[in-house]
């Protein structure tokens, strides 16, 4: 039990592994996703997409497409009549805004860009029509790699620009840093790369737009994490007032960030429904999702870190380059990866001096959007590799060097060199616990014993701090024209004493219907099964920013708790008339409002609800109306933390990496539902292992994605992911209402660093540096061979 709660109620439901309310419908196939929604007289959309990575469009011919049976119409750029594309903005002088056209009419900037939208009476006919659209191209030299994009004299991806840099920020600057690096006794210097990935949600993008003539309103059902953001974008582009656009997210089968931005297809389908006066549905397929939906994670870090002889970090210099693809994502912009990386790179470590340059570089590839963890899996991998390299250089144990550098209990609140304030966490404690569980002290002998048998085994650690629950002040520092932050919850008790919790957050698989009900249930003294959580509908929920950046438990949960406390007060106020006692003398528990000290003087919550609604004659005059409460919550941001540990064995002949053990010691403050938290950790670790060992979107020199199916883009399955042992520490957040910290992204953040360090440890005697993700068997095998032949290799 934590002591910072404003709650007068004992916590009965928070902390329990309640079964997820969502599971029955999802596990029995009765969920309602966008594609499950049917409408009479509907049209299906399919897109003719560019087969070139960079080209000028000479001509688009739609005659053949119009002849395909079932095709109703084909819309091209010239039919859009000057409707603008999506142009997200940062209010920074270093930022170059670019517009993502809805349909391309002139310049193709990545393979898979939509050129024409075909509307037909069946999905098959729509695809036949899309195939029959003829596009004549004048190919341009594609700008595919970071190196090419940054090279002198390379063609600019966006005409009118002199280079391919959309954002270039030096922050913080530190004129003395070079001197410190020159004079430091230990300097580690390396370049790190991470592969491009897709969030690859199980449900791909999908939307259904229809025009409601009765209310003269556009209704868009879309698979999104951010209904209100989608509403703003569509309202702006279509020139409709916001109240005439309703956006609904039904069940959403995962998003991981790919759906916290607005896709042009969502806007186009809305335009089509408005024009045709008929419902229009688009359901993305997997190949389209891989070739046209947002990517992320392709980054390079040139890092230099200085340490003293005792292994204490003195200074860090990083030059961060993010390949953001062809456009900025709405609303976050292409700054989301580089700015996150620069601001939060120091992680859980005490860093006296820091210099960072962060750039967003545009290429002829699919645009980047935030993907679970957003840069943190990459810079944590970099920091943790730097720690490991420094330890090796000094001859120090991997745990010891971290022990000397993590921020400790007496230093909180700690302010980082980028001005971010860390609330208390358990950085040292999680490290010690993980080291103990992994038996780190006896590791070296085990590794040497294995080597003497010709086996390559390694142990790796990864410590990280995960900033979550970003409120307005935190986001405002990014300088986005559209700045997310706080969120709202509205609770309403019905005449039977049941409660509807409406929130602006928008769960898409995380179990919010369960956890938010647990939070409200404790405050209202009723069973969670009497609480319905409503989310994902701009008509029926209070204004809010949706679900991303590990914000919902902290912000949505905080708003829910505040509103629940207010509603409980209101229930007591009404009950005080029925019980003839002062509201302050009442408590609510097990569905009853009772007089403190006299448990038999009670009235049921249901009776209170009934009195307010249908028996107002029992109450004093003026006690009419409803039982409801609305509250907002906007925290400054709070840090979760964890240490991950991994043991791997490498097959030197095939280069295969097998994970023999995986341990997570995490601290997300008060755990609302341990089962759900552990599920989030496991899913996150699986995606992190994917970054470390499996997934990479690869473009060839022509700008074609060559990994465009799940046979080539290797999402690991349950067969590849080992059992994950999870341990919890609880450092309650001091200002999050519930004591909880966000934790939706942590698993993805820790795994790449832990796996890379374990692989590096296994190969430490071979001089192989593991500085590039993913670590693939062919490269690993080649490095082992090369090292045996010639010595040190950068993998």
């Amino acid at each position: 039990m934590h002591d910072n709660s404003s709650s007068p109620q004992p916590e009965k439901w928070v902390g329990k592994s309640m079964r997820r309310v969502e599971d029955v419908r999802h596990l029995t196939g009765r969920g309602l996703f966008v594609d499950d929604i049917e409408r009479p007289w509907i049209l299906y959309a399919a897109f003719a997409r560019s087969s070139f990575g960079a080209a000028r469009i000479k001509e688009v011919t739609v005659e053949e497409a119009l002849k395909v049976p079932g095709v109703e119409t084909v819309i091209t750029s010239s039919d859009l009549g000057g409707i603008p594309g999506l142009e997200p903005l940062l209010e920074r002088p270093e930022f170059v805004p670019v517009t993502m056209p809805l349909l391309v009419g002139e310049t193709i900037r990545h393979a898979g860009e939509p050129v024409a939208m075909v509307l037909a009476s069946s999905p098959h006919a729509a695809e036949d029509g899309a195939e029959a659209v003829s596009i004549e191209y004048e190919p341009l030299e594609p700008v595919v790699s970071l190196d090419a994009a940054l090279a002198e004299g390379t063609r600019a991806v966006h005409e009118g620009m002199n280079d391919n840099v959309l954002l270039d920020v030096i922050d913080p600057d530190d004129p003395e840093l070079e001197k410190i690096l020159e004079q430091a006794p230990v300097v580690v210097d390396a370049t790190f790369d991470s592969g491009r990935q897709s969030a690859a949600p199980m449900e791909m993008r999908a939307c259904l737009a229809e025009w409601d003539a009765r209310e003269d309103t556009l209704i868009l059902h879309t698979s999104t994490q951010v209904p209100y953001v989608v509403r703003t974008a569509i309202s702006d582009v279509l020139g409709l007032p916001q109240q005439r656009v309703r956006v609904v997210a039904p069940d959403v089968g995962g998003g991981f960030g790919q759906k916290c931005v607005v896709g042009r297809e969502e806007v186009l389908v809305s335009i089509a429904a408005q024009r045709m006066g008929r419902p229009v549905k688009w359901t993305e397929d997997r190949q389209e999702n891989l070739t046209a939906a947002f990517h992320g994670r392709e980054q390079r870090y040139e890092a230099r870190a200085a340490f003293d002889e005792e292994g204490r970090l003195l200074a860090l210099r990083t030059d961060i380059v993010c390949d953001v693809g062809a456009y900025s994502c709405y609303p976050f912009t292409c700054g989301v990866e580089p700015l996150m990386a620069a601001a939060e790179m120091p992680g859980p470590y005490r860093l006296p001096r820091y210099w960072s340059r962060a750039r967003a570089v545009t290429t002829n590839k699919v645009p980047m959007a935030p993907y679970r963890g957003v840069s943190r899996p990459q810079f944590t991998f970099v920091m943790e590799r730097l720690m490991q390299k420094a330890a090796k250089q000094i001859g120090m144990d991997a745990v010891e060097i971290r022990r000397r550098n993590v921020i400790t209990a007496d230093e909180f609140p700690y302010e980082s060199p980028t001005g971010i304030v860390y609330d208390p966490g358990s950085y040292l404690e999680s490290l010690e616990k993980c080291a103990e569980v992994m038996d780190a002290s006896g590791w070296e002998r085990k590794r040497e014993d294995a080597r003497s048998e010709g086996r390559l085994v390694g142990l790796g650690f990864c410590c990280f701090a995960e900033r979550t629950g970003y409120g307005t002040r935190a986001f405002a520092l990014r300088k986005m024209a559209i700045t997310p932050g706080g969120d709202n919850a509205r609770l309403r008790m019905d005449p039977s004493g049941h409660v509807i919790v409406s929130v602006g957050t928008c769960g898409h698989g995380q179990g919010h219907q369960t956890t938010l009900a647990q939070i409200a249930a404790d405050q209202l003294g009723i069973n969670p099964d009497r609480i319905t959580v409503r989310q994902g509908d701009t008509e029926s929920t209070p204004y809010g920013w949706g679900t991303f950046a590990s914000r919902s438990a902290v912000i949505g949960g905080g708003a829910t708790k505040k509103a629940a406390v207010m509603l409980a007060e209101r229930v007591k106020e009404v009950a005080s008339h029925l019980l003839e006692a002062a509201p302050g003398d009442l408590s609510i528990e097990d569905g009853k409002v009772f007089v403190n000290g006299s448990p038999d003087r009670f009235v049921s919550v249901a009776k209170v609800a009934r009195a307010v609604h249908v028996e107002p004659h029992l109450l004093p005059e003026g006690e009419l109306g409803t039982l409801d409460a609305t509250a907002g919550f906007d925290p400054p941001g709070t840090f979760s933390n964890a240490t991950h540990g991994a043991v791997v064995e490498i097959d030197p002949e095939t280069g295969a990496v097998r994970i023999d053990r995986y341990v997570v010691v995490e601290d997300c403050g008060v755990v609302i539902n341990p089962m759900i938290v552990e599920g989030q950790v496991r899913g996150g670790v699986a995606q992190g292992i994917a970054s470390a060992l499996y997934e990479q979107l690869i473009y060839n020199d022509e700008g074609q994605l060559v990994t465009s199916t799940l046979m080539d883009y290797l999402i690991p399955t349950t067969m590849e992911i080992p059992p994950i042992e999870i341990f919890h520490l609880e450092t309650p957040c001091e200002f999050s209402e519930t004591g909880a910290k966000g934790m939706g992204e942590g698993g993805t953040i820790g795994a790449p660093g832990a796996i890379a360090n374990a692989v590096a440890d296994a190969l430490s005697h071979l001089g192989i540096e593991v500085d590039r993700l993913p670590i693939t068997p062919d490269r690993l095998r080649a490095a082992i061979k090369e090292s045996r032949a010639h010595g040190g290799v950068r993998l």
Partner: protein
Amino acid sequence: MKPAAFEYRKASTVEEAVEQLTQLGDDAKLLAGGQSLVAMMNFRLVRPSALVDVKGILDLQYVEANGEGLKIGALTPHRWIETMEDPGVLEGFSVLKSAARWVGHYPIRTLGTFGGSIAHADPSAEWCMLATLLDAEMVVVGPGGERMIPASDFFQGFFTTALEPDEMIIEVRFPEPAPYAALQEFARRAGDYGIVAAAVALDLQGGECRSARVVLGGVSDVPLRIPEAEQVLEGADIGQEVFKEAGQEAAKVIDPPSDVQGTAEYRRDLAATLIQRALTEAVAKVKEAADAR
């Protein structure tokens, strides 16, 4: 990922299937388990004008050992091979059962068929490799009746076989038991096609190898026999040294492709390693057999 339009027919006998193939012309395809064909149609990589669905011909689901050889009905699901228990079959053909675990994922193994995989002719498919390794014969029926095609003639290139457009495989025959055979494969994920796969069969007398067969998958457009590796083994005293040499010999003579999963050099290394491992597994069966006796 919706297929181009096609006509759908259902056949309930082999004769009916062949008749329909003849009527529908060269662009018609048979649909069995659909585990490769349907995906390729959804990608529009293939566009058959018509499908003749033969899934309902249940007479073609069987695994029969008669005396020496083994007969597998063309529509037998992979899962049947994976779970077969008949000691008469397992004695000579346990390699089929142990190789079945490499075939795709569980749902693929329950739906996909033995004959379907052979007809699809992916050069790294386990059944195609074992057919080549063990000199299997495909029993096919066409408008002119039945004929037999040996594996060495059957596989002609990527997804290309000696089958005529109006012919259907009804059975695959493995003529002789192969008690000392094994298949090893390497893929980055369980269930994927192997980047490289190696299948071996040995005829052993005491510690000496009288004859050997070595087949590689994933290194060429067909399951590839490697006579150079076989020669290393023939007449040699079996053991890790000669196994390694056989693998290295194979690595020298193949000309595998390079792609995002690995370079040609990596595939050569894998070929050597997997041949060595498959030989080790095959020989371990000698010991198992001895222990069983």
